[in-house]
């Protein structure tokens, strides 16, 4: 407490005690009261004079101006995420695990902060030959692993081979890309690709965490279990990890790149967004990232005491899936009719307050290479109930023979407003007067089983990309060889061919192919894109350096807190 506050407290307490003393139970002696009142007044005046004098003295002898702000040595971060499997780059496939790896490791390429551009990191330079099938990559010569071991071509080749050979969940990202890896010099590797893939596509895959360098001296040829981690090359390393409780990152003294601004980062795991938000508000955390509801973000923005940092969202994108093998959705007219009833603006304005999400008219998100608003072009930006009615009648439905189906959603996995989204969709479809929709929901495990076993016909889902390339937003959904996991059962040989072709092209040629894919997808409508959400971090006002961009990488090494 400041000295003046203590004096005020003392002053008011004295007054209060005096009054209490005087008003204690006794016979009232008015003469004494008048005398005592005079005494009280005199005492009060003396106290005020003394307090004022002391206050003046303290003010005049105030200490020198405070020193310039310091950077906090440790930043405390909260999140509702946690590591789902391991921090082994050959196995991790959940957002948080991957994000940790992105802070403790690096690969040949990385996304420049604030952009969707790839730049060289462990790759000093590269050349592409043989029509795009062979990549000769020259590596940097000054990188070291945390234990001081030198990074060279052998280490890079080992890392890539390890991921492919262990063949865990995300291995296909480079396993389907690379045919052969050769060491052609102390700091040079040669990659022969399975096909002459396009440059940006190949770089995007090589920039994923599965292609990060790991120390060949200490990395076993098996998945490393928690709480162990591998020795990698990155701005931080995991100094402590208590599974399910916290992770502590410490700045890597052997990191050859830009040094992290904060020496230590402690990441605490919270069970739900309410307790996370309470902790930030109470000042127990410096910052919190993932996952807040739109209402929480809005409330914090309005309160104005904490800062809300936002960034473009490409994850998750949200969409509606039809199993096109099941009635009535095996009929394209029905799917198209539903597409005409979707009111994306209403979802975004009502549930995401008009600013925390954007309507999405293609499975390729806004801002991505080749994106077009395919569904807007085909079905319009706003619902067209008349058109929907027309299509439903064509499909054989009427007021006496209504289209009836169950619309499924999962209440917890994505946002807390899933039920409301489903309700808005139901309202739109039933506005035709020719449909009856029943809303159903199930927790994720059950939900996943239901659509895997094809017991449901239409359901809401979300998608987080594996790598930042438009291919990762078309192949897993529309390619008959890639969409098996979704159980959409959509097969279109034309779209398959286009998808296979676009990864081999670059520039305008590729862009045109992607446009065609999106147009066919909108016409067939096996999946209807709905919206894409923004990213939000909530932090104390003194926290700086938070960058939220298309890469979805939360870069702890840029963040710092200035304290006086």
């Amino acid at each position: 407490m400041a000295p003046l506050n203590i004096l005020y407290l003392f002053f008011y307490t004295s007054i209060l005690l005096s009054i209490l003393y005087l008003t204690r139970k006794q016979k009232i002696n008015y003469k004494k009261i008048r005398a005592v009142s005079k005494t009280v007044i005199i005492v009060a005046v003396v106290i005020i004079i003394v307090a004022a004098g002391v206050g003046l003295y303290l003010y005049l002898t105030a200490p020198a101006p405070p020193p310039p702000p310091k950077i906090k040595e440790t930043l405390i971060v909260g999140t509702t995420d946690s590591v789902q499997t391991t921090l082994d780059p050959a196995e991790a496939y959940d957002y948080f695990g991957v994000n940790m790896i992105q802070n403790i490791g690096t690969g040949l390429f990385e996304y420049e902060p604030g952009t969707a551009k790839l730049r060289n990191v462990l790759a000093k330079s590269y050349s592409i030959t043989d029509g795009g099938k062979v990549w000769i990559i020259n590596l940097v010569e000054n990188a070291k692993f945390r234990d001081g071991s030198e990074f060279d071509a052998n280490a890079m080749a080992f890392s890539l081979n390890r991921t492919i050979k262990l063949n865990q969940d995300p291995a296909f990202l480079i396993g389907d890309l690379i045919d052969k890896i050769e060491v052609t010099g102390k700091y040079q590797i040669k990659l022969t690709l399975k096909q002459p893939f396009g440059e940006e596509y190949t770089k995007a895959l090589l920039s994923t965490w599965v292609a990060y360098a790991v120390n060949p001296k200490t990395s076993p040829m098996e998945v490393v279990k928690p709480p162990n981690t591998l020795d990698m090359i990155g701005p931080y390393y995991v100094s402590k990890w208590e599974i399910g409780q916290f992770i502590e990152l410490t700045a890597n003294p052997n990191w050859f790149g830009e040094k992290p601004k904060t020496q230590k980062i402690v990441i605490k795991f919270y069970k739900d967004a309410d307790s996370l938000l309470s902790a930030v508000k109470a000042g127990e955390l410096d910052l919190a990232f993932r996952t807040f509801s739109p209402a929480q973000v809005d409330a914090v923005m309005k309160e104005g005491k904490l800062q809300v940092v936002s960034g473009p969202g490409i994850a998750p994108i949200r969409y509606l899936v039809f199993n096109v093998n099941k009635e009535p959705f095996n009929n394209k007219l029905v799917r198209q009719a539903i597409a005409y009833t979707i009111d994306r603006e209403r979802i975004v304005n009502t549930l995401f307050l008009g600013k925390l999400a954007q309507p999405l008219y293609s499975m390729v998100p806004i801002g991505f290479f080749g994106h077009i608003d395919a569904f807007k072009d085909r079905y319009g930006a706003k619902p067209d109930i008349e058109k929907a009615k027309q299509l439903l009648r064509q499909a054989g439905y009427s007021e006496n023979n209504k289209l009836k189906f169950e619309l499924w959603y999962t209440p917890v996995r994505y946002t807390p407003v899933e039920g409301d989204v489903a309700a808005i969709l139901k309202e739109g479809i039933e506005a035709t007067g020719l449909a009856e929709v029943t809303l159903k929901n199930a927790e994720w495990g059950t939900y996943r089983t239901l659509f895997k076993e094809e017991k449901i016909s239409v359901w809401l889902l979300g998608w987080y990309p594996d790598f930042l390339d438009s291919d990762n937003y078309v192949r897993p959904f529309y390619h008959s060889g890639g969409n098996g996991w979704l159980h959409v059962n959509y097969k279109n040989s034309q779209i398959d061919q286009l998808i296979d072709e676009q990864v081999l092209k670059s520039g305008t040629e590729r862009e045109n192919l992607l446009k065609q894919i999106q147009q066919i997808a909108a016409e067939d409508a096996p999946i209807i894109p709905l919206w894409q959400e923004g990213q939000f971090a909530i932090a104390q006002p003194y926290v700086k350096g938070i960058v939220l961009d298309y890469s979805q990488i939360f870069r702890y090494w840029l963040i710092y807190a200035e304290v006086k």
Partner: protein
Amino acid sequence: MSLKSYIITRLLLTIPMVFILLSIVFVVLRVLPGDPVTMLEGKDIPEEVLQRRREELGLNKPIHEQYLSYLINIFQGNLGETALTKVPVTYFIIQRLPATVELAIMSMIFAVIIGIFLGSYGAYKFHRPLSYIVRIYGMIVYSIPVFFLGLLLIYILSISLGMFPTSLRLSPLLEIEYSTIKITNFILIDSIILNRYDILYDWLHHLFLPSLVLGIYLSGIFVRLTHAQVAETLFKDFVTAARARGITERRILYKYGLRNALIPIVTMMGLQFAALLSGAVLTETVFNWPGIGSLVYESILARDYNLVQGSIVIYAFLVALVSLIVDITYAYIDPRIRY
């Protein structure tokens, strides 16, 4: 039967109890849609990788084989590993159980102090306004959802007044320090052994609010029960006789009234304590308390069979132990009870 025989018999009976419980849990978990590998299937992971995972976890074996193999492991003391992270189940139980025990003990202390004191005094002032207030208090606190009470107290005492932390068991930096020096994972014991009173203070500071919330919530039961039992006892003839002999009112209330009413209260204490040991999921979630209740909840959602089953085994033994202690306590409260 002597007390010794009674204890041995009770402990032996725990084994079939655990066996039956495990069997029920085993069947229920496998009836639920989905399995641990299902949790990964939101991504486009190749099918052969998912199948391999299922094989590694033994999920593609016939149910009876999975059941037998699990029972054999349990009887060999092997609780297995978690499905996705492959970490031994015992790691999580050792990590989380002490936090649950701490919360349970502290909550019970609050519940008993508030509940028994208010209930006894309310019974003593039977037909007076205080008695009615106490009974209404009991109804109200037991009706309030515990998570609502928790959020309310967090808002008032933590966020607005800044008197207590909003959540967690220790401040993050102290938690990291503690993780490197801990011995038993019971903070009270470790901080005394290690002379780390800063950790002890921080822990008490964090423990106060969640245990107060649970304590208030449970005091509703104890208030009502104590009130009814003590009121009934105070109207008995031996109490009137005690008054006639000039025994003080305080002695009448506590030695004659409360002590004779303690048997059902102690039974309830045992039941509630056992329930707390299974983890107060809502309170643990609201206060981010790293206890076993939330662990079981998370592992059910993740369909992590080994983690759920392992937690149930431990819980079953703890419940058996608590109910045994309660039974033994009866003999000390009421000398008429003998084994």
